[in-house]
């Protein structure tokens, strides 16, 4: 396969001093972020903090009238300087995205099989038959039940959780190096969410993708992200390993986010803070 040989020199993606303003209004005010292959990096914050815009900036999908500054470094170049043609080759192929609402991100009138193979065939030039075989394999990987039948179905025939698995399959089928997951489980029930979180962790481990997880839910963050950046008003106010950020938040804003959760008590500060019980924070 293509990826075995270039997986070794995968470098992830680095954001340096990124600024975004839309119609002159600053949305992101100079942030740094590093995505590491095989690791999940968290970007936390409330709605309006600019975290989703950061994800869209990586894909070159910012709305009209936006101005960018700083750098998004990927594969030896600054993505912010790429033109549409170059971006067209990256988007969906090497940098992919999973959105919050799969009913909105999938096309309602195309079969799952078609949606899985269209961009795959454009990017790789694969034959229809090979692409379908790959689609089947990818649906198996994301554990959609009865993948052969699923290929012929339409989005409305799936439950929300199954549909998000399909959306993840669409994102990973081209074997991207970077996966941007923007609130991937927010629309799901806790039990379904648990399954999707496990899937994301597993994909990250098995495929060595560099994942950025964007969410306002620090519980989800704690489950997946090894390092967490907390964003507010377009700035990163705190960054560090998850244990430090969630259990000994330095910034009052981070603390208020943790305290706002209904089940934070046993973990924040005090009780469990002995040196032995701390896990080693490997990098």
């Amino acid at each position: 396969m293509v990826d075995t040989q270039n997986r070794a020199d995968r470098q992830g993606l680095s954001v340096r001093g990124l600024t975004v303003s839309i119609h002159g209004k600053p949305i992101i005010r100079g942030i740094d972020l590093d995505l590491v292959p095989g690791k999940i990096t968290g970007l936390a914050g409330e709605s309006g903090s600019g975290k989703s815009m950061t994800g869209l900036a990586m894909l070159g999908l910012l709305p009209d009238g936006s101005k960018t500054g700083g750098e998004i470094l990927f594969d030896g170049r600054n993505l912010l300087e790429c033109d549409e043609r170059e971006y067209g080759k990256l988007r969906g192929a090497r940098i992919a995205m999973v959105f919050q609402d799969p009913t909105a991100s999938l096309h309602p009138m195309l079969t799952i099989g078609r949606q899985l193979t269209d961009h795959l065939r454009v990017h790789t030039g694969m034959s229809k038959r090979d692409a379908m075989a790959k689609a089947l394999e990818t649906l198996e990987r994301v554990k959609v039940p009865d993948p052969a039948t699923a290929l012929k179905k339409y989005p409305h025939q799936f439950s929300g959780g199954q549909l998000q698995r399909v959306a993840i399959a669409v994102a990973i089928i081209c074997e991207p190096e970077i996966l941007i997951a923007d609130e991937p489980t927010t629309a799901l029930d806790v039990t379904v969410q648990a399954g999707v979180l496990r899937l994301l962790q597993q994909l990250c481990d098995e495929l060595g993708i560099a994942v950025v997880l964007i969410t306002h839910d620090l519980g989800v963050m704690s489950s997946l992200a090894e390092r967490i950046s907390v964003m507010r008003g377009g700035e990163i106010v705190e960054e560090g390993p998850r244990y430090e950020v969630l259990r000994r938040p330095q910034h009052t804003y981070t603390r208020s986010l943790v305290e706002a959760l209904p089940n934070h008590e046993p973990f924040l500060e005090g009780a469990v803070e002995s040196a032995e019980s701390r896990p080693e924070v490997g990098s």
Partner: protein
Amino acid sequence: MNAPLLSIDNVSVRYKLPGGGSLTAVNEVSLDVADSSVVGLVGESGCGKSTLARAVCGLEATSGGSIKFKGHEVRKLGMRRRPEELMRIQMVFQNPYASLNPRRTVGSQIADGLRANPQQTSWSVAGLLEEVELPSDVQQRFPHQFSGGQRQRIAIARAIASGPELLIGDEPIASLDASLQARVATLMRRLALEAGASLLFISHDLAVVRIIADEVAVMNKGVIVEHGTSQQVWEQPQEAYTKRLLAAIPAVDGLGTLPGEAAS
């Protein structure tokens, strides 16, 4: 002994499926809501909790059993005006984008609620906005000028304005930021109780429900599988299904613990 404020007795709701057959969404459920109490109804999507709530406010026809609000039978709403005695049931829906009218100011929409209140002097629009922690000078604004959390507060203010005796929240916090969910839920509890109403709070998130509810009913596949005080259900769940729901709540332990699908 007084009859409870709301009494759901052996209620079933059946949906007809396209191409014949039917789906029993709610299967012989019994549940009471007492005066000035907060009852949480918890379960996964598709378990029938929303259907039950819709039946309670007359939006869904029942196929068996009876729902009584202050002794009056609740029937499905038709084209006629809702009977006077059932007007004291109010609902807050999941999506405030859809439940507020985009073309009218929030002040006038809250005033709608006030007009339905038998004691019209008990609240004012400004006072209600203050209660839901919004500045009172926003009355002239339209729903799109507010964030999701603010919109849900406006929907809550409107529901309270009409002087309900039973407030139903159907996943009212599911579309809000995690940091806001507990706050809005607590606000609903406080306002409902202050206004002398009971609250039936529906959610899939037991973590939030247990902090605001006095008692919790857990629903699975149209049936209530467990029912007890919040503390009891949270700390000593009896049913495997409840345990599974609890295990699925991600912990903010900072250790990378994946929430379990089964409590193993």
